[in-house]
């Protein structure tokens, strides 16, 4: 961030078509599993349903951000600019759920 070089490099190793293809396949697969889970009443009624869905959604979220938005390959500054606000947003979300008694109480 405090580098003085006018040309500190940006993304160097971009992922290729085959990476993109596999990611799209995985995203589709996870979505299929998510929707499938929705139609299994026994699973929906169990305590594992919500955590399982949240984890699957978080994985999709992370994969898109890391590969499609290429944060994995890009300058560390962009990671800070995104992750910092995201942490505050998630923390505020949980705090709001707490004060409105949607969770933890």
């Amino acid at each position, binding site marked *: 961030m405090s580098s003085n070089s006018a*040309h500190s490099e940006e993304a160097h190793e971009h992922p290729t078509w085959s990476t993109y293809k596999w990611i799209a396949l995985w995203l589709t697969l996870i*979505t299929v599993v998510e929707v499938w889970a929705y139609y299994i009443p026994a699973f929906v009624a169990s305590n594992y349903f919500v955590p399982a869905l949240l984890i699957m*959604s978080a994985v999709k979220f992370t994969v898109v951000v890391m590969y499609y938005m290429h944060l994995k390959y890009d300058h560390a500054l962009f990671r800070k600019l995104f992750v910092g606000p995201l942490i505050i947003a998630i923390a505020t979300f949980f705090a709001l759920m707490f004060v409105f008694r949607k969770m933890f109480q």
Partner: protein
Amino acid sequence: MATDAAHDAHEHHHYTTTGLDHKKIAIWAFIGSECMLFMSLISTYLIYKGKSVVGPWPHEFWCKATNTAAATAEALAGCPADQIYKPILNIPVTSASTFVLLMSSLAMVLALAAVEMKDQPLPAGAGLGDRMLRSSKLWLWMTAILGATFLGFQAYEFTSFVHEGLTIKTNLFGSSFFTLTGFHGAHVTAGVIWLLTLLAIDYKRGLGPKDALKVDIAALYWHFVDVVWIAIFTLIYLIQ
């Protein structure tokens, strides 16, 4: 390489501390800010979940005459047929539109890759597939059309909900649902307009490696709108 070409575009620009482009820093700051925007919308939807005093409901059947809800229509025995409202959320349709939006993200990364590679000669014996991967117009059109298809699904969803008795004024569920998904839809709309603008430039003078950054920034916005939908699909549609 693509990145070298991107640097050529920088040559005539001013000195920057990090060597990064101003606009790319700004778009990431903007995306950070948008996290708080959608956090507020999603929180409100969840805070109001189950707080509506009348139906229709997202996941349950509702009898208007008695104002009671149940998981199945049979459980509402005794309710006149014209008083029964189905669960509003349509998972099959939304699953399809979710898939469409995910695929639009794939098209978007391919558009960016096509723009970055435009100046490289095709390898010997390149087939149709290789040629397609070099066409920025194809993938920009694909992204925009998939985005528009998502919006079409949303328009269908909204109108059918209205027919089923849910408007933005009906209950808290309607207010918070339409506002949240409407905000997301407005973001997709802005993205489609952005993509069409890029296409206009592509037709006018051709997008090349020097424009990679321009496309990259639009792509970051587009993918962000996609990840927001990933969160919405799980939190609003799937979790009951």
